[in-house]
């Protein structure tokens, strides 16, 4: 099981920076507190905005802070390594490995995501519970579906970050595209504001885009705003986007390896 081995080593690699993890948890929690009060002020005036109640809104805030790193909202993860290797030309070595390049980096990124769920996700959630009495998953089943949904979110996010990294084949440096992609992800994932309180038609558009997969869909399953067929419909859209984007990744990589001369000749 080569990919499992890659994932395990990636998990270990990200777990080396302990103080960084603690500092990150602290910062996420500070932002969790700020946004909680902002949302409480909003839901105090409109107790049913977006079909959420105040508890749902605050839970949504803390879920967002807990998942920020797991879904690599700002970019980052193993795709940053790839982009750097494209810039330096080292990607040539990745390309003649007897293993698929996409699978290699995806396995690494999943290992990273598991680490980030445990290290950056659990503590903020507990803090949210203590400080703001956030809601737990509506049922054990909802909890299980939440995990599935989160896994799909990571794959979707990986595919988008992979495509961004691949722009380095043509632009040499990914940082501009990485930032643009981060901007879109932050706004359209519902991290700035839950997508459910966006005004129509922005709301429907945002909910149909792949970024809804990052936070809004998993959060709605956690909160019990999706159940039964609603969960399946949400997951189906996530699977669809993940599959489409992974296919695009394959096509782009094929195009890049055919057309582009790697730096260094």
């Amino acid at each position, binding site marked *: 099981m080569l990919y499992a081995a890659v994932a395990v080593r990636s998990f270990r690699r990200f777990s080396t920076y302990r103080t960084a993890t603690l500092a990150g948890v602290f*910062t996420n929690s500070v932002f969790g507190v700020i946004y909680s009060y902002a949302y409480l002020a909003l839901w105090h005036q409109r107790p049913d905005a977006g079909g959420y109640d105040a508890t749902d809104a605050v839970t949504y805030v803390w879920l967002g802070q807990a998942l920020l790193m797991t879904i690599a909202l700002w970019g980052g993860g193993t795709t940053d390594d790839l982009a750097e290797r494209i810039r330096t030309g080292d990607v040539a070595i990745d390309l003649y490995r007897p293993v698929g390049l996409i699978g290699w980096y995806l396995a690494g990124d999943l290992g990273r995501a598991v680490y980030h769920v445990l290290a950056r996700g659990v503590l903020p959630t507990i803090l949210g519970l203590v400080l703001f009495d956030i809601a737990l998953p509506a049922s054990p089943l909802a909890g299980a579906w939440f995990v599935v949904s989160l896994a799909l979110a990571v794959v979707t996010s990986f595919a988008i970050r992979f495509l961004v990294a691949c722009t380095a084949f043509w632009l040499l440096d990914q940082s501009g595209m990485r930032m*643009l992609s981060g901007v879109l992800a932050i706004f359209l994932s519902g991290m700035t504001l839950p997508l459910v309180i966006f005004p129509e038609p922005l709301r429907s558009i945002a909910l149909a885009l792949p970024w809804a997969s990052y936070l809004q869909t998993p959060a709605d399953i956690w909160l019990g705003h999706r159940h039964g067929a609603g969960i399946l419909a949400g997951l189906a859209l996530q699977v669809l986007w993940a599959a489409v984007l992974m296919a695009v990744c394959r096509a782009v990589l094929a195009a890049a390896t055919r057309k582009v001369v790697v730096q260094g000749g």
Partner: protein
Amino acid sequence: MAEVTAAVRGACQEYVWIAAMWVRSALAYPWSFWILVVGSALITLLDFVGLGLMFHTIPHLGGFGLREVALLYGASGIGIGVADLVIGSVEQVGLHVRTGTLDAMLTRPVPLLVQVCADRFAVRRLGRISQALVVFAYGAGSVDWTLAKVGLALVMVVSACLIFFSFFVAFSCIQFWTVDSTEFANAFTYGGNTMTQYPMTIFPREVLKGLTFLIPVAFVNWYPCLFLLGRPDPFGLPGWFAFVSPVVAGLTLTVAGLAWTSGVRHYTSTGS
């Protein structure tokens, strides 16, 4: 005195040289450079759109209308924007310690703080400042301007820059002790900025007290803006708080200076 002025002028000159070098280096990847400029303007634009969307749902937040919140948002945004442009790279001091580049900097005849701050100078951060200026101008419509208020607004913006300046430096100094704690400082710099984007009335009284007396970020915009808007303090704190932002800025600068010198004194190279 003349020596001090000469030293400061020299430091500024050196800062500009290093910054210009980094601008040239960023232009080596022109596509990325321009996309970064656009992206950075977009990121702040969408941030304010998010706030606007909140007001789509409700008429006022914590008793403040959109224009009043825009005034708070803009003032805080200009403050952190300028501080981030000029001095934001100080966040990376832990990276310099870890990789050993700080040793090289220590041997150069340019003040260490100047080198660290000018490192990776990024013009794209102008994007945030221009957005904040636009939002501030929009918010200014909610103020009955008098000469005194214009003066106070200027004092407020300068103090805001200086307070965020000190936050960047002071909290980055922690990295002299624990190298990989960059994100810790973000809670106070960007966190402070995010807090002051909202009217303080959304927070409980204890939080406001903490933000006034402990981490004095409320002086960045809250107290001066209350005066500009002609509002009595909703928490019943004294009205003259509106005018002490420069004093607070002086205090935070002193603390930051002390933190920096003790951090540098504490520094031991990773190679030794």
